[in-house]
């Protein structure tokens, strides 16, 4: 019986130097996939290659051999020997492999828990293997299930929610203050890259218009143009605060440039509608006292980092729920996989009896040349009924056996008794 396996390395098991040497371009992967399949090492195989992991998923009679061949080939391109790779590899089979596949697709095994790219990467790897015709029913079932599990986890848990980068964390905070960011005005003080990034994130959520103030007027104008905003003279930025909802500061000023007194004035003139300060500068651009003013919220880089940490903790708590969900799905899938294993036996058993039936029917009818259409029909129906009755019990038993786990033995026995050719599925090339 062929075994489902996964072998590979990820950000925990191997250093980046090794991982990047094994990350190959698509053409090379195609070659390796076809080779593993042609040589009969893997009946089914796909390779997932991202910057954080290189993994081979497959179905093989001898998974150890298949793994060695796969990683020898993956290393060969850049002259990395199997001996160098081997200590960093993990190897899982059957339900452990299923669990691994589900966890990877659902981003529970990712370096940044819940990051969304991995699902797309798994889908790409699957599509590549499909185009190389190295995907059979087992990998197909495994991956479609993995995709649906990943989707469920994304919608039913919050493992992918809550920002894990400072600039996105700032956007989320803004949403916790303003609800929708639609038509919220932004003032960007300083032309730093971080500030620009944060402004862009806010704009993606509908924030507009954007004002840019910078000591160098031409830089302010350039950045304003890049963000389709308006440049305001640097001296006027305190006055502009009254007209905006979010102020992002990222200047290199050695001491605070946003004073509590000015903010208080701005808040007063905007009737204490909230004003959110994102201070990305070090040393800080916004006086700490600003946060004490009613309606003002000020987050500096350290605060944002704390929020990111809290967000990650939240993701980890959610991950526990996700893991429970994955485990339930693995159990379900194992049952499906076992069902899948008896299908070829059932098919060849049916084929065998059908061949016998048609042969014997032909023989009998040739001895009855004068038989009427009615007779022929009756004989046809009779032979079919006999075959179906004979097949009924073994097929039911075989299907039931998957639940008790002795289906492999039973399938073999049936093949032996009925003289079936060994079920090959679509594994052989």
């Amino acid at each position, binding site marked *: 019986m062929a075994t489902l396996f996964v072998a590979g390395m990820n950000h925990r098991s191997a250093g980046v130097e090794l991982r990047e040497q094994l990350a190959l371009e698509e053409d090379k992967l195609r070659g390796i996939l076809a080779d593993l399949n042609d040589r009969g090492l893997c009946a089914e195989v796909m390779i997932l290659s991202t910057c954080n992991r290189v993994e081979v998923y497959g179905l093989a009679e001898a998974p150890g051999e298949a793994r060695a061949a796969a990683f020898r080939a993956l290393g060969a391109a850049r002259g990395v020997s199997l001996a160098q790779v081997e200590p960093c590899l993990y190897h899982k089979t059957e339900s452990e492999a299923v669990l691994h596949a589900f966890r990877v697709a659902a981003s529970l095994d990712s370096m940044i828990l819940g990051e969304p790219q991995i699902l797309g990467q798994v889908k790409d790897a699957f599509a590549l293997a499909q185009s190389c015709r190295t995907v059979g029913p087992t990998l197909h079932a495994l991956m479609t299930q993995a995709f649906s599990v990943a989707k469920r986890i994304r919608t*039913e848990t*919050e493992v992918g929610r*809550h920002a894990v980068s400072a600039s996105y964390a700032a956007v989320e*905070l803004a*949403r*916790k*203050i*303003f*609800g*929708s960011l639609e038509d919220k005005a932004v003032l960007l003080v300083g032309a730093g890259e971080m500030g620009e990034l944060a402004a862009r994130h806010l704009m993606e959520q509908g924030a507009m218009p954007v004002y840019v103030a910078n000591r160098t007027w031409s830089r302010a104008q350039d950045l304003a143009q890049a963000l389709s905003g308006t440049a305001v003279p640097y001296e006027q930025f305190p006055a502009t605060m009254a007209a905006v909802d979010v102020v992002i500061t990222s200047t290199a000023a050695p001491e605070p440039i946003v004073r509590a007194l000015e903010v208080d004035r701005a808040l007063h003139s905007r*009737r*204490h*509608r*909230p004003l959110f300060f994102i201070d990305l500068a070090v040393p800080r651009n916004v006086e700490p006292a600003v*946060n004490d003013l*009613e*309606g003002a*919220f000020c*987050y500096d880089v350290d*605060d944002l980092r*704390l*929020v990111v940490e*809290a*967000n990650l903790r*939240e993701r980890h*708590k*959610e991950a526990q*729920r996700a893991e429970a969900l994955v485990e339930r799905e693995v159990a379900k899938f194992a049952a499906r996989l076992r069902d899948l294993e008896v299908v070829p036996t059932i098919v060849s058993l049916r084929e065998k009896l059908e061949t016998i039936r048609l042969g014997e029917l032909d023989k009998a009818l040739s001895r009855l040349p004068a038989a009427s259409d009615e007779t022929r029909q009756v004989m046809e129906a009779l032979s079919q009924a006999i075959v179906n009755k004979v097949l009924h019990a073994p097929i039911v038993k075989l299907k039931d056996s998957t639940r008790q786990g002795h289906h492999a033995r039973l399938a073999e026995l049936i093949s032996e008794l009925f003289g079936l050719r060994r079920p090959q599925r679509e594994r052989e090339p």
Partner: protein
Amino acid sequence: MNAVLYDVALTAYIIATASALGYLLGRRDGLSRFTVLATETGWVLHTLALVVRGVELGRVPLMSLAETVSVVIWVTVFLELWAERAYRVKVLGAFVLPVVLVLGLALPTGLRVLVLTPAATSAWVKVHVALSLVGLAALVLNFAAAVMYLLQERQLKTKHPGTVYYRLPSLETLDRLSYRTLTLGFPFLTTGLLLGVFSAGKAWGSPFAYDPLALFSSVMWAVYAATLSGRAAGRWRGRRAAYFALAGFCVLLLTLGAGVLLQGKHGT
């Protein structure tokens, strides 16, 4: 029959409250749906209980304290279900239902039975009571929104996001909810109280003659009137408005307490 229905409804509210608190502090989305279901079930049973009682008594169930509290709860739960949907504030139940329970369990038990004197049961009095109760129910929600606002504002100011931070909606949503419930409740309260003044003038000779409930009600009205005018003028919002909402609710509780504990002209 009516008592059984009322007990079952109350049980559903208790279950809904536990579930709502569980949702606020835990992390099971199912609890949010369950809370709504339990609340709706409770409300439907409660409606039936009120109808049955009305039929049994052959009058609107608004004459005794137990009846009025029951109606306040009924309207509050209805408004809560509406606001939760309209403002997509899934945790609203966790802040409204406990208040409902306190009212439902504590007020009618062991305290003076307050029943309006038959003399004071003109149609206008009934309208006075009904309108005031709708106003009170909206103000219970106003209180819940204010508490939620202050909690969330605190989380944002101290920069230490806890479980509540992730569950509560934005400050903007909470501020709008608090304003909306005030603008909804205040006209009812005002009209209700005016009718009260009008009826009292006729029944007692003087609108406020030594009646604690009437006196406290006017203080309560004044606090809410101040909050509303401050908000409408754009001077108060957010935290300040939330503090006023809390103050208003404290007076509201005192008013109810006065009605229950102190002897006055509202009942015997």
